[in-house]
């Protein structure tokens, strides 16, 4: 193009003035992301770097309004790992509950999304109810809920109450009932406790799967109805349709949701490790120690995310649109 222009010696004064559309668009792109880039470089990165740095220091606030940093090397990490009696055990139990919760949340939210995607009476009402926890049960409500004895108390039909709010009969099902149910089948004890925990934890799981449900719903909506129509004509059952059409089409969402759930469940306030770190932060000289603990925790979780994302992305099916 430019060569042709040069050969015919047609002057193009406008060309010099304004850059090509692509160039202009590239500049426009930077313009749009500028607030984030400025903030990230000038505010966020220093905060992140400081946070790493602080974990190697002790902090003393000076009377004049400044602060003093005393380098201590790996002492904070050493204290967290080997001196502090609770950190390692809390970490392990936190990771354990993570391994338990994440599949539960994923399965539950996918199931509910499929259910809420079907045409039925009162769908809007059920959707509105199901998304209440996303909006209302966060932040301070979560911490109120964590020490809430009221709903357990109210939930009991009867019983002698000593006023302490603690009761023995508050669990919805006990392992005994499930064991009876499973006794005929040859399933292990592990599965029984898993199911029991899941059912007793249902409130927690429902509460935490709101965003995931939204993401799955959006994914389900984006599957073309033509595909469903054609498999229906071919005579597929609902079960086959789910596993052969819905599941592969939604698999990118499963990856997104798995990563989101991991991030969400290890940054939420009700996470045991996070609570422990917050408590440590409040203690004398605990602020640097909590930084060190949080960074170690973060590293572990990043590794878990990388591993799970790596494994899942091998199974993800991407529909070619073009």
């Amino acid at each position, binding site marked *: 193009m430019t060569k042709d222009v040069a050969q015919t010696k047609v002057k193009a004064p406008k060309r010099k003035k304004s850059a090509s559309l692509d160039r*202009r668009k590239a500049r426009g*792109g930077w313009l749009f992301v500028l607030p984030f880039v400025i903030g990230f470089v000038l505010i966020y990165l220093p905060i992140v770097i400081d946070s790493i740095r602080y974990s190697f220091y002790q902090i003393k606030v000076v009377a004049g309004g400044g602060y003093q940093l005393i380098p201590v090397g790996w002492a904070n990490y050493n204290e967290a790992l080997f001196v502090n009696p609770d950190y390692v055990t809390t970490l392990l139990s936190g990771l354990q509950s993570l391994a338990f919760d994440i599949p539960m949340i994923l399965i539950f939210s996918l199931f509910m999304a499929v259910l809420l995607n079907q045409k039925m009476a009162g769908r*809007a009402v059920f959707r509105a109810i199901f998304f209440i926890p996303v909006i*209302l049960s966060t*932040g301070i409500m979560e911490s109120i809920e964590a020490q*809430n004895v009221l709903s357990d108390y109210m939930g009991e039909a009867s019983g002698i109450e000593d006023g302490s709010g603690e009761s023995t009969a508050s669990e919805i099902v006990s392992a005994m009932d499930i064991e009876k149910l499973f006794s005929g089948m040859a399933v292990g004890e592990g599965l029984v406790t898993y199911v029991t925990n899941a059912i007793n934890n249902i409130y927690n799981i429902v509460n935490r799967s709101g965003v995931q449900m*939204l993401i799955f719903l959006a994914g389900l909506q984006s599957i073309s109805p033509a595909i469903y129509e054609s498999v229906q004509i071919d005579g597929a059952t609902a079960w086959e349709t789910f596993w052969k059409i819905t599941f592969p089409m939604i698999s990118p969402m499963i990856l997104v949701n798995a990563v989101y759930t991991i991030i969400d469940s290890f940054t939420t306030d009700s996470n045991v490790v*996070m609570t422990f770190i*917050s408590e440590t932060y409040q203690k004398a000289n605990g602020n640097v120690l909590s*930084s060190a603990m949080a960074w170690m925790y973060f590293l572990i979780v990043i590794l878990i995310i990388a591993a799970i994302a790596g494994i899942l992305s091998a199974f993800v099916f991407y529909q070619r649109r073009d």
Partner: protein
Amino acid sequence: MNAQNIDNKPKVQKETKNKIKVEFERTPLKERLKAKFLSMFFVKKVVWFLFRLVLLVGISYIVLFPFFTKIAGSFMAPEDFVDVTVRLIPKNFTLDIYKAVWTELNYFEAFTNTLLLSASTAVIQTLICCFVAYGLAKFKFKGNKFVFLAVIFSLVIPHQTLQLSLFMNFRYFDILGIFQFLNGGGISLFGKTITNDFLAAIDIFPDTWEKFTTSGITLTNTYWPMIILSLCGLAFKNGLYIFMLRQFFRGVPDELEESAYIDGSGIIRTFITIILPLSIPMMITVFLFAFSWQWTDDFYTNLFFTTTKTVLMPKIVGIPSSLTTDYAGQNLYYSAIRNTCGIMIIAPLVVVYLFCQKYLVQGIERSGLTAD
């Protein structure tokens, strides 16, 4: 059935301009009902309908029950908590808890403060996230992927990790040492220290900003940390908003903007007049998230508001002094009081949610969210 109809040619009974009344033999009603209701298909449908209904109602109950207990408990007098016969319906109906929370815990002040903070940060966050997401979704420029990675990075790092340095950075706020330089903190060049009393000399800042130290401005106990973080799209969960909006904008066909460009509209103008009106449901979704998560957020409010001067919603949770008791049901009663605080905190949010919830699903549905 159909074959029969074709065989016996329908007799035309009456014919007008628009309607034709035709008489033909129909299968008897009994047969038709049998075919409809006694098939396996119908039974399956009913079973599935019942199963679904029970499941949905059950889970709705699980979601709503805690709210119901909170409301029930908030109307109860202390006596009700030791009465075994009282469960969900209060016997001694009282509004004492509400009154005490309203007067003694500064509810109204907290409400106005939080409204100001949440509304301003939510509006800023929605707009900034729209900008960033649009830039990431629709423009191919060098570093696009890098910026997107940075967004994900800011989402992945838990804020508790940054607790200390967030506090320190806003307690002694300074960008590139500018404030330190302007305020006589001095800057060292070639071994010499150049001091500068520029800020002290011109004295432009009002008294609220008097807390200048040599290490920067103190921004804690003001709204500034939140607003600065929102302006940069770095506040609580903003990475998620940017991700959601980015997916939405990717679903908007390019032809729309191209035709606008051909008509001579600039990039910014195209964005404001064409793209933004399209994305209103999605923006309302993001606004709803940003508003309500800021409203109930206790991490940032506890971190940045260290004094009791500014009362914010998440900080009013406590036991009003007039309600302290050594009564037998103390544990439950205090729990009921805390839950009442919770109800009063989320009451405004419920109103907002009722107005916005239809956009919540709509916005997400239209986003065509995909992970590629």
